[in-house]
C-alpha cells in the first residue's frame, strides 16, 4: 500500500477535516458521511486519518483487537495475553464484497483439510475499535447495507450460518464517501452517520494551486513530504489525545441542552438522534478547542455537520440542506 498523504497537508476542506477529528475524539458521535464531487480529496482525507490517529493497545494476535485478555472471544483460541500497541485500524470495505467476507464465515481451509469447524473472522472483526471506510457508499449493495446497519446499531456481529453460532464485539466508526450524482443514499443508512459533510472543490485560485503543488511534491517524494509534515501531524494528534481526556469532564449545562433541542425542533429533524449527536459533537469541539464549557458558538459550529442530513427531504426547496440549517440557526440563535 502506498504511503498516505498527511492529514494536516490537506488544503482547505475544513468542515471535512473537523468532522473527522470530532469522531476521532468521541467515537460515539457515530461516523462521518462525506458527499461531494470527484477530485475533492474525500478518499485522501479518510486514508490520511489512519496515519493521524493515536495508537491503541490490543491483545497481541486478537482478531477483534480486544483491549484486555478478558475480552478475547473463545473462538479465537488465543493463548497469549501480551498487550501491544498498534495503529487504529482503518478497514476498507470494498464494493462488491461478499457477505461472508464482512461478517466472517466458516474457515473453509480448516473445514476441508482438517475437518474442523472453525470461524474465520471478517472485516467487521478487523474494524472493531477502529474505522470502517466505505468508498462509494451509495453504490453498496442492499443486503450488505442492511447488515452494516444492524451491526452499527447493536455494536455486535452475530453470525448464524454454516452451522456456526458466533458473536463478537464490532464497534466501529463508519466513514462513508460518495458522489450524490451517482445515486442517493438510503434514509436509514443516512441517519446512522453522525455527521455529514458536503465537499466542493476550492474556488480560490491560491488554494487550488496549493493543492496541486502539494499533491505533486507528495507524488514525487512521499517520504520527504511526510517528514516535512510530521510536526503538524503530531500537533493535531496531541490535541486529539488531550481532547479525549477533556470530554470526560465537560458537562453540558441546561442552556446548551435547550439550545440543541430548540434547533432540532425548529428543523423538524426526525427522532432524538439529532440532539444527541449535536451535543456530543459540540462537546468534542469544545474539548478540542480547550474550552472550559460548551458554548453556543460550539453548538452552532457543528450544527450543519450534525443536522443537515437529518432534515425531512423537501425536493421542492432548492436550497441545499446545509443552507437550511444555517437559516434556522440564524432564527433560533438570533
Amino acid at each position, binding site marked *: 500500500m502506498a504511503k498516505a498523504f498527511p492529514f494536516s497537508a490537506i488544503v482547505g476542506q475544513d468542515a471535512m477535516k473537523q468532522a473527522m477529528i470530532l469522531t476521532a475524539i468521541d467515537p460515539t458521535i457515530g461516523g462521518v458521511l462525506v458527499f461531494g464531487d470527484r*477530485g*475533492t480529496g474525500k478518499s485522501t482525507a479518510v486514508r490520511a486519518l489512519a496515519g493521524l490517529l493515536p495508537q491503541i493497545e490490543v491483545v497481541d494476535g486478537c482478531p477483534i483487537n480486544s483491549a484486555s485478555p478478558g475480552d478475547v472471544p473463545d473462538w479465537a483460541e488465543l493463548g497469549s495475553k501480551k498487550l501491544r500497541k498498534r495503529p487504529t485500524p482503518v478497514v476498507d470495505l470494498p464494493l462488491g464484497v461478499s457477505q461472508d467476507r464482512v461478517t466472517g464465515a466458516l474457515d473453509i481451509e480448516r473445514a476441508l*483439510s482438517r475437518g474442523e469447524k472453525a470461524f474465520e473472522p471478517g472485516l467487521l472483526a478487523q474494524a472493531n475499535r477502529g474505522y470502517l471506510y466505505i468508498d462509494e457508499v451509495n453504490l453498496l449493495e442492499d443486503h450488505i447495507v442492511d447488515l452494516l446497519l444492524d451491526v452499527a446499531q447493536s455494536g455486535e456481529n452475530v453470525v448464524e450460518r454454516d452451522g456456526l453460532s458466533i458473536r463478537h464485539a464490532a464497534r466501529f466508526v463508519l466513514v462513508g464517501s460518495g458522489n450524490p450524482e451517482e445515486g442517493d443514499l438510503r434514509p436509514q443508512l443516512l441517519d446512522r452517520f453522525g455527521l455529514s459533510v458536503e465537499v466542493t472543490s476550492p*474556488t480560490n485560485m491560491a488554494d487550488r494551486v496549493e493543492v496541486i503543488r502539494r499533491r505533486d511534491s507528495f507524488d514525487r517524494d512521499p517520504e520527504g513530504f511526510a517528514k516535512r509534515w510530521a510536526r503538524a501531524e503530531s500537533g493535531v494528534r496531541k490535541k486529539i489525545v488531550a481532547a479525549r481526556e477533556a470530554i470526560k469532564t465537560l458537562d453540558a449545562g441546561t442552556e446548551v441542552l435547550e439550545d440543541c433541542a430548540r434547533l432540532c425542533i425548529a428543523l423538524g429533524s426526525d427522532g432524538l438522534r439529532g440532539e444527541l449527536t449535536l451535543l456530543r459533537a459540540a462537546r468534542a469541539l469544545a474539548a478540542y478547542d480547550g474550552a472550559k464549557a460548551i458554548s453556543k458558538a460550539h453548538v452552532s459550529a457543528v450544527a450543519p455537520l450534525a443536522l443537515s442530513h437529518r432534515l425531512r427531504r423537501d425536493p421542492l426547496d432548492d436550497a441545499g440542506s446545509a443552507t437550511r440549517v444555517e437559516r434556522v440557526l440564524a432564527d433560533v440563535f438570533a
Partner: protein
Amino acid sequence: MNTPWTRFLTALDLVARAPHLGGMVLTMRPGPAWDAALAAIEAAFPEIRRWPASLSLRDLSGGLDSVATLAEGRAVYSTGLLARGHPILIPSAERLDPQAAALIAQAMDAGTAPPLFLIDEAAEAEETLAPALLDRLPFWCDLSELSLRDLTGHAAAPDPGAPVQDPATTLTVSALRFGIPGLRAPTQALAAAHALNDMPTDTDVTMAAQLVLAPRATQLPAPEDEDSPQPEPQQQTSDDAEGQNRGQDIPLDDLVIEAVAAVLPDLLKNAPLKPNGARGGKGFSGSGSRRRGNRRGRPLPAQQGALDGQARIDLVATLRAAVPWQKMRRAQFPDRQGVILLPRDIHVQRMEERSDRVLVFTVDASGSSAMARLGEVKGAVELVLAQAYARRDHVALIAFRRDGAEMLLPPTRSLVQAKRRLASLPGGGGTPLAAGIEAGMRQAVSARARGLTPQVILLTDGRGNIAIDGSANRQQAADDAVRMARSIAQSDIDALVIDTGARPQRQLADLAHDMGAPYVPLPRARAGQISDILTGAR
C-alpha cells in the same frame, strides 16, 4: 507535428515511462485507427492483458477458487486480476459494471492498479464510461475520426529549452478557464508535464495541457478575456494580488490556453456550450441509468443444480450435501483421497432479483399552460426521486412542443442531477403529440433492453395538431397519435395517460384506450397528486 494520433502516441509514451499516471481512455471503433492503436499499445506494453468488460467482481478481487479447491481438497485462492500487475486493456469499457469500476478506482487510489487502457465504444448517448474511472485516468484520446492517412508521426520528445517557473499555477488557471471544476485534472496535467520532462519547458507544459485538459474542457475561455490586453481569469477575483505578482507567467498561460483551444473538439467550438458539467460531445449520465437492472440480489437458499458456467457454486451447501455419503462413497471409490464429491452434490447459489422501474414522463410543453404543467411535473419528478431508493425508480423526462420531442432528463436516479437538468424548462408552441409518444416509446424500449421495467406517463391537455413529420395538419396529427398509441400497446409497454385539461376529453380517453393505458383526468395536476398516482400505479 501535433495531431490526435501523435498526441495519442505521446500519451502512450508517458504511461510507459511513468506507469503511476494511470493509463488512458480511447474513444474509437474497429477500423484502421483501432488496429494501429492496439498495435502501438501492445508494442509499448508486451505484457498487456485484455479483459472483457463483463468481468465479475470475483474475477477482479480474487477469492476462493472452487474448482481447484474441490480438486485438491484444500482451499485454493485465486489472485484477483488487479493484483497480478499486468497492464490491462478493456474493450467496450462503457459496459463495465459500476461496482467493478469502483473497485478498479479504489485500486488506483491505493496505487496498486497496473496501467489501464479503456476503450470506449459507446454508440448511444446514455452509454458512458464510469465517471469514477474517467476522472482518474489522465489521458482521453478520441481516435474515432481518424482514417488511415492520419496515422503518421511520432510521440513528442522532451523539449530541451529553459524550464518554466511555475507550471502548477499555469495549469490550474488554464483548467479553471476551460471550465474544469475538479482538481484531479490539473494535478494529472502537472504529473504528465513532469513525466514528459523532469524540468518542464513551456512546450512540455503545453503538451501536457493539450493531453489532459483539452478533452475535459466544458467551455471556451470567456471571450472578453481575449480582448483585454492583459487577460485575467474571471475566477481569480479573490486572488488578484497573486495573479499580478506572477506577471511573467501570463504569456505562458495564454500560450497554454491557445494551444488547448486549438485542439478542442469542433463540437465544443461551434455548439452553444452546456451550462454545467457536460463533457464535450458526450451525454452526461450518472451510473444510475447504466446499471444493469437485475443487479441487486438477496441470497436465497442454495439449490441442487448443475454447473452451467453461469451459476455460482455454493461451496458449503455442496459439501454439506456430500458429507453424509462419505463413508459409503469411500467404500465405493477406495482409491480416492479427500472429500468425494459427485455431480449430484453440487448446489448452486440463487439470488432473488427484482427489476428497477423507469418512469418515462412524456410531457406536453405546448401552449399557454405549459409552464405550470412543466413546473408540476418537475416537482413530481423530484418527489419520485426523493423516494427513489425505496421504490427502485429511475426517472426520465421528455417534453414535446413545436415540431418535435426533446429528452430533457435521461433516465436517472439522482435527485441532484435531476435538479440540475430541470433548472430551466422550455415551453410554448404547437402540440406534436405523436412525436412525444414516439419518443417516450423509444426510451421505454431502450430501457427495457437494459433490463429495466419501463412505464410511460403521458401528460397533456390537448389534441395533437402537429403530425409526426412536423407539418401542421390536424387530421394527420390525430392519425399519427393513434398509430403511435397502438404501437405502445403492441410493444406491451405499461403506460398511463394523465389529462391535465380543464375538462376530461373524449379523444384523450380514446387514445389511452388505444394505448392500453389507464386514463386519469387530473385538471391542474399537482406534483403530489401525480406522485401519489404513480405509487398506486405500481
